[in-house]
């Protein structure tokens, strides 16, 4: 009964009394269960998905209008924005296809049209942010499905190279906005590598990194925990400092299962609560 009162009090005030590094938390007024948000570079929209990472939705953070871009399997993981906030990229597969046969599509916010993009590999999707005009180099990162190493490829020169030369089964590579560093996951840990592949990975913490700060100095992520290893019983947000290789917990609630934080501008964060599928925004106390 006491705990219920505490939850009610917290939700009513929109502020949590726990010692945490986020404040001014607001729930985005949209119905449904959503997760894995990726906020657009200008912070006006976010992509989200639903249960089982199925479907792609575009949420207007100003009007709270939400539209579905895809309802296909495989579409809720790895989607990305172009740098101009005009296009989103996602993958999807048909019912009888394998996930590895998924195909990449673009969706235009202006024309609301979906276009097949055969030239983009599904594994490079999350670090692909649109074709850059007059660029001499366009780097993407991906997991080599044969070796489970993280590799980088220059889409212009077609040259590719290995980032993670150490032993490991890597996943979820996250390219920094300036294209110079890559956050990767090996087991439960997060490492940061230089894009050139010459250096060794530096461990910055544990969990899942989900968003780089625009200045390339921080990563946001989360770490879920379980009482028995079967279901998630808690999850908190973490801020990782790339220079000092330290992390700090920025949320500390018993009420929410904060997951998948995404930077909204310099010091604002958008994340989802995995209990309810609600979307929240909050101010980060960096």
């Amino acid at each position, binding site marked *: 009964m006491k705990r219920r009162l505490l939850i009610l009090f917290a939700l009513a005030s929109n502020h949590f009394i726990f010692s945490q590094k986020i404040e001014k938390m607001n729930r985005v007024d949209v119905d449904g*269960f959503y997760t894995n948000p990726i906020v657009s570079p200008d912070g006006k929209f976010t992509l989200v998905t*639903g*249960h*089982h*990472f*199925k479907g792609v939705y575009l949420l207007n953070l100003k009007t709270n209008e939400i539209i579905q871009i895809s*309802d296909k*399997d*495989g579409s*809720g*993981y*790895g989607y990305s924005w172009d740098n101009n906030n005009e296009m989103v990229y996602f993958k999807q597969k048909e*019912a009888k296809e*394998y*996930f*590895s*046969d*998924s*195909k990449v599509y673009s969706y235009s916010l202006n024309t609301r049209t979906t276009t*097949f993009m*055969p*030239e983009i*590999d*599904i*594994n490079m999707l999350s670090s692909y942010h649109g074709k850059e005009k007059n660029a001499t180099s366009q780097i993407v990162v991906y*997991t080599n*499905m*044969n*070796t*489970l190493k993280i590799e980088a490829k220059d889409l212009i020169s077609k040259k590719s190279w290995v980032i993670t030369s150490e032993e490991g*089964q890597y*996943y*979820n590579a996250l390219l920094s906005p300036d294209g110079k560093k890559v956050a990767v*996951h090996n*087991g*439960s840990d997060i490492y940061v590598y230089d894009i050139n592949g010459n250096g060794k990975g530096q461990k910055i913490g544990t*969990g*899942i990194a989900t968003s780089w700060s625009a200045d390339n100095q921080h990563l946001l992520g*989360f*770490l*879920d*925990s*379980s*009482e*028995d*290893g*079967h*279901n*998630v019983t808690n*999850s908190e947000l973490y801020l990782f400092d790339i220079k000092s290789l330290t992390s700090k917990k920025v949320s500390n609630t018993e009420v929410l299962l904060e*997951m998948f934080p995404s930077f909204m501008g310099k010091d604002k964060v958008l994340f989802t609560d995995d209990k309810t599928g609600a979307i929240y925004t909050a101010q980060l106390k960096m």
Partner: protein
Amino acid sequence: MKNIFKIVMAVLFTVSMQSQIIVIDPGHGYGATTSDNPDGRTATEIETALEVGLRTRTLIQNSCTWTVQMTRTTNLNSWVSVTQRGQMANNWNADRLLSIHCNAGGGTGTETFYCTQDDTNTPPDVAFAQKIQTDMVSGGSWNNRRCVEDNSFLAYHLGVLRYSAATGCLNEIGFVDSADATKLTSSTWRDAFALSYFNALKSDLNLTCATTPAPGIFTLTVTPECNGTTSRMALSWTTSANATAYDIYRNGTLWDSNITTTSYTNTNGVVAGTNYTYSVKAKNTGATQTANSNGIVSVIALNCAVPGAFTMSVTPECSGTGTPRNKLTWTTSANATAYNVYRNGVLYASSLTGTTYTNTAVTSGTTYSYYVVAKNTTASQTTNSNGTQTVVALNCAVPGSFTISATAECSGTTSRVNLSWTASANATSYDVYRNGNLYASDVTGTQFLNTFITVGATYTYSMIAKNNIGTLANSNGTVSATAVVCAPGSFTATATATCSGTTSAINLTWTASANAISYDIYRNGNLYASDVTGTSFLNTYLITAGTTYTYYVKAKNAAGTLNNSNGTLSATATNCSGAKISEENNVKETITISFYPNPTDGILNLEINISEIQNIHYMIIDMNGRMIKEANLDTQRSINLSQLPSATYFVRVVVNGQEFVKQIVKK
């Protein structure tokens, strides 16, 4: 050695990635030590789950070419959160996720859960879970506990299934805290459990791992090329072991099939500039096909048409910093992908993709020739249709300092002012100003001869050097020169015997000598008459019929004298005593004028032999040719020179169209 072989085989099968991807998730795991047990699970569960998982992977890899990955492959340093397990499956494109656990709490048998929370497509999860459950019951000889949706029995959703997009289930093999534990730790039973999983996966995926070995790993290369003017794609691939044929996929759909060689040329439906993706699948009689290991290959079709006609122009110009450059622009050549610029017949810039080129390495005043060649991937190239264009690089610096000088001189008999100057650096031409006004423009060279002048007049000169950047005046200011009198010019004379009434006479005539002011007549070698004006002289005085007289004429001015060019003339006087004076022969009386006194103190008198003459025009000219005084005389016969300074002057008198010039001295 066996281990090495196993590793090699594992690598070979791992890199031979197939479309269907299985992720096996042995539950839980330790931290750095077995005492670091974040999930608080038993060693039996942690180690059995891994061992059965590894054995399942081995079965798959030894028999099939599916790709199989594991969320952990060790017991130590292997704990990962349930969300991370789901992320691994998503990142690795898992089609099936099998999470392996062991039960606790007392009981016996196996049970399988699936998670269909808000899932719109539940049959695949249910079918997969049921197949796992069925095969584990039979293959593991287990009591069939249940196969149900997780939340319906557990009252929560299993994290690993919830966060994965793959079709998945979680199997609790048996109980660690009952008699089941004996089977869980038995190697034989672990093999049986792995085989059950393997068979269930094959069945659920509707795949058979046939005895026919799957096609081996191979790589694909796609090269865009031209066949004449036709664009095409040349595909070649390394041999896939065990393959009997290959299927070609273009843009994700089957393009051609059953290719038995290791190359293929795509000639149909290839449009220049279009991006195409290709992949190849090796196949044999087995069910499994092997895609090229380097993934989808993306290439852009070449433009193979001969570049079209185009024209080019070159404009010399100056940059904003004042350096010369030649700017080439050309119209677009259809089908061209790049252009080469040739300068002076030599390739100068290549592979330009735009339609302009600025040649900055040029020297002012130097001539350059250019032509442009349009090219693409074909062997044929097209040169600009308007041929080689030639330009002279501009001078882009303002004119440099220079000085001028003006010298009065004669060119033969012509008086002129020789204006010359030092060259102004960078100047392309000059403007000449005379007496403050623009007199000649766009003069080139370093000399200007001003002949349109009046002798004795003084002229001032200045100049401006020019080019397309600016102008500069000569540094030494205005210079002046006074036009000089030039020596008399060549002339010829004739001497003819004639009669003046009944008087014998010799009529001496001559062509006008340029610049001459008067003439002296020499008869028989002696000065006979001086300061004669006009071009004739009738010699009547002391002419004796039958006598021969010689004459020559000396033209005069201040600059000198010159005899008639045809030498001494002679004429023999005729006898005129019998001559009658007819009306027709009435000879007009010759006008003679004399001036006196000479030298004079002020008044110069004129004595004219014909008293009726009026309207006499006179000018007084100094020795520099400048006119000092001018007036008309009617009946007067004197000129007042008293106001003039003492000097030598010329007095020029015109009477009835005849000119008389006399040098006088004013005292």
